[in-house]
């Protein structure tokens, strides 16, 4: 008789490992699914269809390349193919958006799967009109065409690149768009600040779309992100006993306003997970830290901000924290992290994470024995609420 109950084992990875599976990954967990994909690709290669996954145009080129360089190792072959792809993309990006469609009409299954829905493109058009009502139609067209080619490029590369290579490629896309704006006639009347906003526009729409695809840019397959998320969350639970006095932070828990600010900061930090684009996540971090600054009282220096932020992170235990931070680090326009208020606060968040990860008795200036006692305690005893202590 069919039952409404789903057994735990039905949700687990088909491979029988500890993790949960997912129908999108044919019932495997992300790691096993990736391994399965690699095996599949190897099998395809072995059966002589080395270039079957490439679009036709590139296939010709890479066939030629293979003939010329038959002595190349597999690694070099791959590199060559990638650079050919890059050249091709560079020359074709700004022609027509239909060029990108040509790519997807190839024998590659994945590109067809990842056709960008019209609704997304329409939404982007509307957003552009609202944000940049004075800019010309060509600017609009160029920006949207760039987002399109950006997305297709990342999807194509996600399968053949490590996440670091992919991150580098995305960074180059931002730089390429900036160069295009500096050289193209369409942009000659656009001032520097608006160009920065246009880069943010491109980042927002490309990354928002890619963020929704499983395991492409967020917790990408082939990374440890998911495992680290779990480890971090468990670590924070374990540290629930850490109080403001351990961290050198002067918070007044008797003050209702202080408590209110802490909870505001916590909800912004939790909200980081629901924002899709790196810029959106950064904005949450900025709002969170502004609350934390207010929490510290004026004038809050870094001596106050960092401990209070660590405390906030410990009390919030935000979901998928490592994945979120890695996603922003890899795919946000790198310049936004090196400078600016949001970049500064994000650096503080990274510091808080690093501190929590490496925290020892010494870093809390407490006795090793006492520390070990606390750490051995079941996590639930600690509790995470921050209420007035009954004395």
């Amino acid at each position, binding site marked *: 008789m069919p039952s409404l109950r789903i057994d735990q084992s039905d949700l687990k990875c088909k491979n029988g490992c500890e993790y949960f599976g997912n129908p999108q990954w044919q019932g495997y967990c992300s790691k096993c699914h990736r391994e399965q994909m690699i095996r599949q690709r190897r099998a395809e290669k072995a059966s002589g269809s080395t270039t079957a996954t490439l679009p036709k145009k590139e296939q010709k080129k890479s066939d030629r390349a293979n003939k010329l360089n038959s002595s190349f190792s597999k690694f070099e072959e791959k590199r060559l193919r990638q650079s050919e792809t890059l050249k091709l993309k560079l020359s074709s990006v700004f022609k027509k958006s239909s060029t990108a469609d040509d790519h997807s009409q190839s024998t590659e299954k994945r590109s067809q799967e990842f056709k960008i829905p019209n609704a997304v493109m329409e939404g982007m058009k509307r957003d552009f009109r609202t944000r940049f009502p004075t800019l010309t139609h060509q600017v609009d067209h160029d920006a949207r065409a760039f987002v399109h080619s950006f997305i297709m490029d990342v999807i194509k590369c996600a399968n053949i690149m490590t996440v670091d290579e992919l991150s580098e490629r995305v960074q180059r896309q931002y730089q390429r768009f900036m160069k295009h704006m500096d050289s193209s006639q369409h942009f000659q009347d656009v001032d520097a600040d608006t160009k*920065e906003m246009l880069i943010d526009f491109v980042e927002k729409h490309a990354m928002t779309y890619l963020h929704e695809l499983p395991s492409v840019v967020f917790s990408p397959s082939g990374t440890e992100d998911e495992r680290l998320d779990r480890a971090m969350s468990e670590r924070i639970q374990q540290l629930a006993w850490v109080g403001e006095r351990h961290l050198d932070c002067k918070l007044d828990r008797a003050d209702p306003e202080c408590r209110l600010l802490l909870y505001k900061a916590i909800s912004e930090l939790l909200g980081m997970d629901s924002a899709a684009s790196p810029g959106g996540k950064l904005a949450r971090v900025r709002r969170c830290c502004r609350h934390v600054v207010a929490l510290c009282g*004026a004038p809050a220096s870094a001596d106050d*901000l*960092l401990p209070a932020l660590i405390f906030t992170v410990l009390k919030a235990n935000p979901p998928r924290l490592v994945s979120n931070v890695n996603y922003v680090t890899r795919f946000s326009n790198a310049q936004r992290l090196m400078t600016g208020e949001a970049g500064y606060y994000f650096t503080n968040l990274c510091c808080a994470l690093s501190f929590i990860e*490496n925290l020892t008795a010494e870093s809390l200036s407490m006795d090793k024995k006492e520390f070990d006692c606390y750490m051995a305690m079941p996590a639930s005893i600690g509790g995470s609420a921050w209420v007035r202590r009954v004395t």
Partner: protein
Amino acid sequence: MATNRSGTAQRPNGAPQTKVCQFKLVLLGESAVGKSSLVLRFVKGQFHEYQESTIGAAFLTQTVCLDDTTVKFEIWDTAGQERYHSLAPMYYRGAQAAIVVYDITNQDTFGRAKNWVKELQRQASPSIVIALAGNKSDLAAKRMVEFEEAQAYADENGLLFMETSAKTAMNVNDIFLAIANKLPKSESAGGAAAGGRRLADGDAPRSSSCCK
């Protein structure tokens, strides 16, 4: 040639627009040496006048004008407590300037300042401009670190050096101006980030390992 930001630097007499350069500056030093007082004095011109509850001293910006250039400082404060010491490299990554602050009435803070300097010279960008500030010079009666000692150390290590007082404002603007003067203003000079966004072209560490 650095980028001109439209509208921000037009001189009233019709002279050509000045260059605008943006620099990231980190503040290092033990807590309680007066790092944030120093920067608040520089940015807000105030000392112990904290009526506004929203003022943060952790991240501030201030613009100074040199002859032909406008220099915009973006000031990143760092936590000075010993327990957070190991996190400092995350802050000074990509910084073009640093001020290491110590308290002239406390010999220990000078020792820690020397450690910061050593670390910056080893790990920060090679072109970073480092300034040493002996703060609280208004408390000369309780002085524990001699001016000559610090000056000799600064000379040895190629640092800018001044004794400052956030309380009396002595040398506060001067030390920032001295840094601004020493920073390379042209794009070819590497570390400089003209108009902010040049960072992405040359400075981003990611772009270094290109596969060409």
